[in-house]
């Protein structure tokens, strides 16, 4: 399924033509019981970019995000009707896909900051320890690198053995990002990572997303229009389980083609 030619439905940036596609969603239909949660979704995500999924509550954006690392497997009654999701060319819903490997490659940060009730160090080291890595020096190195990458190192380096619950909300969320980075994913899924944070903590996480773009592909769900405009390269607008419009972020906000998109981004509903 290797596909060297990138398929961007609304390619408008001619400066980076060599960018490759990492996620391809084709004709994806998804049900919760009788509810048709995602209707015929087609979407491609570029390598090393930030893609924002926006839309009113219940539009299916979080569902799509959770489909990308198969977290929906845990939800009862969830099923895929048709279509496929390709990551690096592999259909992740194929029978022979190792879900554990997939989740290592596609990390996830949740809406509510949720460090484990362990020390800061153990939180980060957890992802490595479950892979059987015991070497203290390797763990030390990984913990430092991840905390640096999450811009948290300077704040916590003297208290790595403190319980992670003692950190502030913003620090906890950055810790969760660092924890997700420790297993060296390719893609990072973020489910409204700033919804519980104050503006200062939010801006720190946004800066972090900017810097992470160098090494990771990020898909972020957000309710905050300004945030989508600030951090993302591409934006997808969902409404009632459909992908209404997908384009470069500036185009979505400045020049939306669909009247629904325009109504939503200008704040007339949602």
């Amino acid at each position: 399924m290797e596909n060297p030619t990138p398929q961007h439905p609304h390619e408008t940036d001619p400066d980076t033509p060599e960018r490759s596609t990492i996620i391809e969603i084709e004709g994806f239909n998804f049900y919760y019981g009788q509810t048709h949660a995602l209707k015929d979704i087609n979407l491609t995500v570029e390598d090393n970019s930030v893609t924002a999924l926006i839309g009113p509550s219940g539009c299916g954006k979080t569902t799509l995000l959770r489909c990308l690392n198969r977290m929906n497997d845990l939800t009862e009654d969830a099923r895929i009707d048709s279509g496929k999701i390709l990551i690096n060319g592999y259909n992740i819903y194929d029978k022979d896909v190792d879900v554990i490997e997939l989740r290592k490659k596609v990390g996830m940060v949740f809406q509510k900051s949720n460090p484990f009730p362990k020390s800061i160090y153990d939180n980060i080291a957890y992802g490595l320890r479950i892979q059987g890595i015991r070497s203290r020096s390797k763990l030390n190195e990984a913990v430092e690198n991840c905390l640096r990458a999450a811009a948290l190192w300077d704040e916590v380096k003297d208290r790595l053995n403190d319980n992670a619950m003692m950190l502030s909300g913003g620090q906890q969320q950055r810790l969760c990002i660092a924890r997700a980075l420790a297993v060296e994913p390719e893609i990072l899924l973020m489910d409204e990572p700033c919804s519980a944070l104050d503006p200062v903590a939010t801006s720190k996480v946004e800066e972090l997303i900017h810097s992470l773009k160098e090494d990771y592909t990020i898909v972020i769900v957000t309710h905050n229009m300004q945030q989508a405009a600030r951090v993302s390269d591409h934006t997808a607008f969902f409404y009632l389980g459909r992908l209404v419009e997908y384009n470069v972020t500036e185009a979505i906000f400045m020049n939306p083609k669909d009247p629904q998109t325009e109504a939503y981004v200008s704040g007339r509903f949602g």
Partner: protein
Amino acid sequence: MSKAPQQDRLKLRRSKSRQWLGFDTQRLLKLFFGGNAVIAVIVLLLITFFLFREGLSFFPQYQKNMEQYRRSGMEFTSLVNEEHERFNQLFRSLVDIRKLQIEQLTAQGLSHEEIAQASAALRERIYAFSELAVPLRNYQRDVRNITRDTYALAQADLEDEATMAQHYDNTIAALRATFSTYEEINRQLVGSIEAQLALMPDFEGTGLQARAKDFRQDAEQFIVSLPTYQARLTAWQPVKEVSLWEAIASFLFGREWIINNDGHSSYGLLPLLTGSLLVTGIAITLAIPLGVGAAIYTNQMALRGEANFIKPFIEFITAIPSVVIGFFGITVFGSAIRWLSQQSALDWLPFFPITERLNAFTAGCLLALMAVPTIFTLSEEALNRVPKIYKETSLALGANRFQTTMRIIVPTALSGIISAVLLGIGRVIGETMVVLLCAGNRIQIPQLSEGVGVVFEPVHTMTGIIAQEMGEVAQGSMHYRALFCVGIVLFVLTLLINYIAQKLFQHERVGD
């Protein structure tokens, strides 16, 4: 618009509700519920107060009794008795050696005459030994006769203090007159035992030789310890007062619980306490893996159908009355264990075969069965309280389900699981019927020197002794109060365990 209809629409004045005896319905309901709470609290306070009043008054009574025991010279008698007992033990081990020798000779196919001839030397020694005991035994009987009447008189509590003191003095004087006899007996005993040891025949076969060697060591130790008996005798102070602490200590750390309706009873808690702890220990060792393991499986790994089957089934165990479980223990389980222990395939186990059908292990297994539902239900609840997001996060990091369970879910729920286990212990330690029926009811401190085999010893427990003896005691007697005192110990122990469990539970809630 006029003013009148507007006032009608906004009725703010309180309407009159129905009244009984001057109280309206709300007040009455409040009184009813509040009254129930007050009654429950008062009854509990009364029970606690009664328990402590009856139990704690044991100590002054016991103190007085110990003082009578000492001043009437009975204490001295028991010192002599101790020495005599030890000599008897020595004698019995000698008899055992001969028994073994005869068994071995019979196994070799020798005739009666031949056996008699071969063991004649040893038989001589046994006769001689039994002769040696005679003066000591006589002396013991004499001093007991001197003291017994005085003790009975003191217990009857009929004489006034001055007369009683006179009695005491007379008895002690009579006792002191015998001291030189005692010294003489001991001196002779040393010499004659040494003489007998020198005459001991040699044995063939390693088993006999080892026994004989043990015997020789024991006998030498006995000789060495004779001066300590003598020293205790000299140090013995018949007029020294017994302090209350001494009475408390001899209750808490006393190694004997002997009820003697005519003579002196000793109320030592240790055999009962150790028995209770041994049974509880066995029960908990078995119940923790079963209860916690089942909880982890049901909560984390089982399919929904399985969980719906397992949960009610385990909780169903609580519906079995404990007397039925005890009955099952006597008729089925105890016999099954003994039968199993007698199978030759299991001979390699050091403590098999067991002789007693009813022992601490039998009771412990059945108590484990009773503790499992408590531990299971509360552990499962604790696991359930772990936020689901932890599980999702762990899985999203590439952990498999087993890793998630063991490294995230169980550690997070640990304090809840520990408190579940503690409540299980609380339930086991207070359980009466099963231990009364199945523990064997032998009042004796378990012999830890037997290693793991200790679990197959019959024991008696604190709950068991109360249930067994409370029906037979005279109200207000020392025995009656001693049982209440055991009840206090039990109460304090259970309270402590429940308190710790509750602390851990709260601690976990804060963690959420």
